[in-house]
């Protein structure tokens, strides 16, 4: 069972796309692409000598400081600070730029910088240069049952160097910058802080092709060592996400996991993003020629091969090592690295060496870049037509495209030519016609049809959009280069490759042993420890997530405390368990309304009784605790929270020349403007308007509904008028409408940013977020309050180990635990699994894109939450009843609200009586 095969999203692609769109700070206008830059600087050349910048001559600004570290003099480059370097000795020419840097201890977050030349960004790709960190795995630990548990990577704080290259992996070689004596090279930190130790320029020398390489070693003889390196014994990885796993699917995997779990492979979909590298160390006893055989599995990409860049001792041995192909095949295979002409032989001196395999797109890179440019063109065409016709054009109407937009003909022609060229080139490389071709063929056919008859465009507009989307998804998938490695062999160049053994009977007995073993595995426990207190915690979530939490608990919580934790993957049956007296001590990941619902019936233990409770609440936005309060006590802690933001399409707003609305008054203008172009606004809800008008849900903590106040009625009127008068859609799929442009403006939870990155790659870079619009108060200030809701974790009143359970909750909501949880979940399940953590310290370290972080921070200044009160469930049901009464049947706002408030109040009074609360 491979547990890591879930579709992992191309984190780096997303990040790169966001960064390139969002982090433009040095200069606002769009710079040319590297391709254009390279063409314009191609004439410069002839340089042979590099140079390093003098640290003492560099100019610091924005909070950067010169510091002395154990590794020597350095610049501490904080977020948004810059360092300017000059190279007075350099001769004019094209150079690669190498940065020397080190991550700060105990600081999470990606290291990202921008490179500027003479005060501006020379080309777009410079906006999000990635600086990798370095990690290492310790020895796997074993639990009490003998199962190995994958260790967590530890960061190694060495001074590292990176030649500035494309963060998205679209270029195989580092960037070349045109530099002369007067050039000022700026390094700007745009994310987590790091030390910068220097910058050097060097001329770019392409590696020799293999045929020249082998000629140079023609006189060398074959080596004699036979070295086997286990994939999981990796000595260095560039990304903490590159995982090592237990594959117990076959006895031929080395070492085989017969009875207990053994960590035995590396890779999978956690090691697929261009730039992610793994390095192994090995030692040769005798110099000579060697060949490299990799036992690998690549059954991920449905027909296409994936690529790895092969580095020996940190550098390319020959040009072809830039992209070594691993073909698609079911199951494990031994691949001796080589090309069509034969096996690559590599000369290795006696001594210690490193072998690095780095994800790369290989020859596909160029096509991916061209396809992306074409998608931009297609999107532009789509947007133009869409603005005229809307997403569902009237088939009977003549839109007169031919006369209104004659230029479209040329655009279609260009798109047609480009697509044909890409598709033809792709076939040349892959040699196979896979299902991917259909995507190109469909689009080519459609574009050709549009080109010959422009009037047919409106009828095909929606299938055009989905074809663009399919192409964008295809491109996005090309960034994924997954591969599993069991082991690597370094073998004499004239020897044979020994293949792994795994006959029928061996597999049979392996399967049988596993089956027997499944009866004695203890899934809920890690330790048999009896001296410690054992608490039971319920984790109502899917297996993958609970496995992550269980490992986290084992590594970080039970290892140094006096408490052991028994976890159960249970959910939805708390009530029965409490009634039966078999309740756990604590439950995590519960809904927002549950704690008070149980608390008013005496089933929960109040947390404010613990002496350090006040201290712990400082971890969260204070209002997130509001829904967990009842009768003066707090019964739960928040663990993930929502923050609504305003999502908008930058391209559409730019094209219409509209400003993004910041108040509801501006929203009205924008809605009017958008509606003339068949577009809509979405996501307006009553709660937001209510709180912005200064209204509230309940009086005196739930004595009665406060919806009969003037503010509430006014807010309700405003809310319903959006639907009744402005005709906003009541029901819609945001993702689909946002990507098609039908709804270029909407309020959504900030985690939607992640989904958009993943599910709507074709509009990547075409949208942004802001805090939600506010209501202008009479004194001119703007009230931007948004409502948040959280998930909860709590302790049961009947628990015998409340103190221990509290220790557990404190640990679970701590920054460290929450950050590790979201990071690991993301590493395993993909970016979309990122958790919207409540812990503020953890939230700050989660790698959201810059603009999301900025907007969330600003929005967090004005958040509020709804109290949970006895009978509160009546509020939401009657708010929607009242809404429908007004919007569907044209009911009078005031009358309707007042009538439903009556029902709500009846229920509240009833419940308050039940729980012995004052009702007056």
């Amino acid at each position: 069972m491979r547990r890591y095969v879930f579709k992992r999203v191309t984190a780096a692609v997303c990040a790169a796309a966001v960064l390139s769109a969002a982090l433009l700070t040095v200069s606002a206008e769009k710079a040319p692409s590297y391709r254009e830059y390279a063409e314009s600087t191609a004439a410069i050349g002839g340089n042979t000598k590099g140079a390093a910048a003098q640290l003492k001559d560099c100019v610091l600004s924005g909070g950067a400081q010169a510091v002395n570290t154990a590794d020597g003099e350095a610049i501490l480059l904080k977020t948004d600070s810059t360092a300017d370097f000059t190279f007075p000795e350099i001769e004019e020419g094209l150079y690669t730029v190498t940065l020397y840097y080190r991550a700060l201890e105990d600081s999470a977050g990606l290291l990202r910088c921008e490179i500027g030349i003479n005060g501006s960004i020379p080309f777009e790709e410079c906006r999000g240069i990635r600086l990798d960190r370095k990690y290492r795995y310790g020895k796997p630990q074993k639990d009490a049952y003998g199962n190995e548990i994958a260790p967590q990577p530890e960061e190694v704080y060495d001074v590292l160097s990176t030649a500035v290259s494309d963060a998205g992996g679209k270029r195989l070689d580092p960037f070349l910058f045109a530099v002369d004596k007067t050039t000022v090279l700026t390094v700007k930190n745009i994310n987590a802080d790091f030390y910068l130790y220097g910058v050097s320029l060097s001329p770019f020398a392409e590696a020799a092709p293999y045929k020249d390489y082998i000629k140079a070693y023609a006189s060398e003889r074959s080596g004699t060592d036979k070295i086997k390196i286990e994939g999981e014994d990796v000595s260095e990885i560039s990304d903490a996400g590159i995982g090592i796993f237990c594959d117990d699917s076959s006895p031929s995997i080395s070492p085989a996991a017969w009875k207990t779990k053994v960590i035995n492979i590396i890779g999978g979909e956690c090691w697929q993003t261009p730039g992610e590298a793994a390095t192994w160390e090995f030692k040769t006893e005798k110099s000579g020629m060697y060949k490299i055989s990799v036992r690998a599995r690549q059954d991920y990409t449905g027909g296409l091969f994936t690529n790895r860049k092969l580095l020996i001792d940190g550098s390319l041995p020959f040009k072809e090592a830039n992209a070594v192909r691993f073909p698609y095949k079911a199951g494990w295979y031994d691949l001796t690295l080589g090309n069509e002409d034969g096996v690559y032989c590599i000369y290795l001196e006696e001594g210690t060496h490193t072998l690095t395999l780095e994800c790369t797109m290989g020859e596909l890179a160029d096509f991916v870049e061209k396809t992306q440019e074409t998608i931009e063109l297609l999107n532009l065409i789509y947007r133009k037509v869409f603005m005229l016709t809307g997403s569902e054009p009237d088939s009977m109407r003549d839109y007169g495209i031919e006369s209104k937009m004659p230029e479209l003909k040329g655009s279609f022609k260009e798109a047609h030519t480009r697509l044909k060229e890409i598709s033809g080139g792709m076939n040349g490389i892959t040699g196979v016609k896979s299902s991917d071709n259909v995507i190109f063929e469909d689009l080519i056919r459609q574009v050709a049809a549009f080109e010959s008859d422009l009037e047919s465009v409106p009828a095909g507009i929606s299938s055009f959009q989905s074809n663009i989307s399919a192409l964008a998804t295809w491109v996005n998938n090309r960034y994924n280069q997954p591969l599993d490695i069991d082991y690597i062999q370094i073998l004499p160049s004239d020897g044979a490759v020994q293949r792994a053994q795994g006959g029928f009977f061996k597999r049979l007995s392996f399967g049988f042993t596993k089956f027997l073993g499944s009866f004695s595995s203890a899934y809920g426990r890690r330790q048999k420890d009896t001296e410690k207190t054992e608490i039971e915690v319920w984790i109502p979530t899917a297996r993958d997530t609970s496995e992550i939490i269980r490992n986290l608990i084992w590594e970080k919580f039970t290892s140094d405390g006096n408490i052991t934790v028994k976890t159960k993957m249970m959910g939805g049956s708390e009530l029965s368990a409490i009634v039966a007296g078999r309740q756990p001590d604590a439950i995590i990941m519960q809904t927002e309304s549950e704690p008070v619902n149980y608390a008013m019936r005496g089933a929960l233990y109040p947390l404010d009784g613990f002496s350090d409770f006040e201290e712990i609440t400082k971890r969260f936005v204070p209002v997130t605790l509001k829904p967990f309060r009842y009768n003066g006590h707090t019964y739960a802690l928040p663990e993930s929270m929502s923050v609504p933001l305003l999502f908008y399409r930058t391209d559409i707003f730019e094209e219409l020349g509209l400003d993004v609305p910041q108040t509801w008054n501006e929203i009205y203008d924008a809605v009017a403007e958008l509606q003339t172009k068949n577009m809509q606004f979405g996501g307006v809800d009553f709660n937001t308007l209510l709180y912005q008008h200064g209204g509230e849900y309940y009086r005196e903590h739930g004595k009665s509904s406060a919806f009969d106040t003037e503010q509430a009625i006014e807010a309700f009127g405003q809310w319903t008028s959006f639907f009744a008068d402005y005709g906003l859609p009541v029901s819609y799929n945001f993702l689909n409408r946002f990507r098609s442009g039908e709804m270029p403006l909407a309020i959504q939870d900030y985690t939607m940013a992640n989904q958009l990155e993943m599910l709507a790659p074709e509009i990547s870079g075409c949208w942004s977020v802001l805090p939600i619009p506010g209501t202008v108060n009479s004194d001119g200030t703007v009230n931007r309050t948004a409502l948040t809701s959280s998930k909860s974790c709590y302790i049961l009143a009947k628990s015998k180990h409340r103190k221990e359970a509290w220790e557990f909750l404190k640990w679970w909501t701590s920054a460290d635990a929450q950050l590790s949880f979201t990071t690991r979940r993301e590493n395993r399940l993909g970016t979309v699994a990122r958790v919207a953590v409540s812990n503020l310290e953890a939230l700050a370290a989660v790698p959201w894109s810059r603009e999301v972080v900025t907007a969330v921070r600003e929005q967090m200044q004005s958040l509020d939450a709804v109290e949970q009160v006895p009978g509160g469930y009546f509020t939401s049901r009657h708010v929607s009843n009242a809404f429908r009464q007004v919007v569907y049947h044209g009911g009078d706002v005031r009358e309707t609200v007042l009538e439903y408030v009556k029902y709500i109040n009846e229920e509240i009074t009833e419940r308050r009586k039940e729980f012995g609360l004052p009702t007056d």
Partner: protein
Amino acid sequence: MNTLSKAAAGKKRRGILSYWRDYLALAPFFIIFFTLTVLPVIISICLGFTYYNILETPKFVGLNNYIQLIFHDKIFSKAVSNTMVLAVITGPVGYISALIIAWMINELNPKLRTALVFMIYAPTISGNAYLIWQLLFSEDSHGYLNSMLKYLGIIDSPIYWLSDPKYMMTVVITVSLWLSMGTGFLSFVAGLQGINVSLLEAGSMDGISNRWEELWHLILPSMKPQLLFGAVMSITSAFSVGAISSALCGMPSTDYAVHTVMNHLNDYGTTRFQMGYASAIATMLFAVMIISNKLIQKLLRKVGE
């Protein structure tokens, strides 16, 4: 007399003992049936007289729950009327159409018949298959039905099928009918298969002149057990409709427009934790079902007469 009755009692006792093997064979079913069906029913009837919030011990409140339910709970009366509308339409219509369809496909050749039986019965066994109706009745203007109507020029803004009280009942009835070809239908098919052909031949000799007469005088009387079974099933399902309306229209539906007794029960049992009250509702529902079953049995006795 005394000795006689004693002897009879003794004989009876010996009788029970002498049948111990049969009772042993019955025991597994009886134990399970008693603990999982009979006992809960008894407990629920008892709980109907208490205030019970699930987490604390029940308190005896006498007939309060019933008084509240019958005289004060406006939503309950709405739920009762909704359930009645649903039961009266979907119960008989579903029952009769199941019978007629079974009768019709009984004439077909066996392969085609099996295929049709499967197709018609499939919706019932596939769990929440009716959720596809949610897709069909989607309130999004891009939803299937809405966009179709829009394309045909019948509407220009989406119809809120599942939240506008005007349409909700129709939608729920439609979906219930679609689902009504259940176990009853299967038993009809089986009953029709089991009819002795010689009986029909004898009937035609004795002067049955058309298919309707054949159906009424021969076929239906000889499949009375299946008819009864089908009736019980259809009544129970008609009265316990609830999942469909809450899955399609939300829980609770707009203005309780398709709120059924089952929904009401769930609302009290799970949302408000008023298990005593919910038990009272369940007991009422139980009583209504038993009474209507008795009625139907009486009616069915008239078949063929």
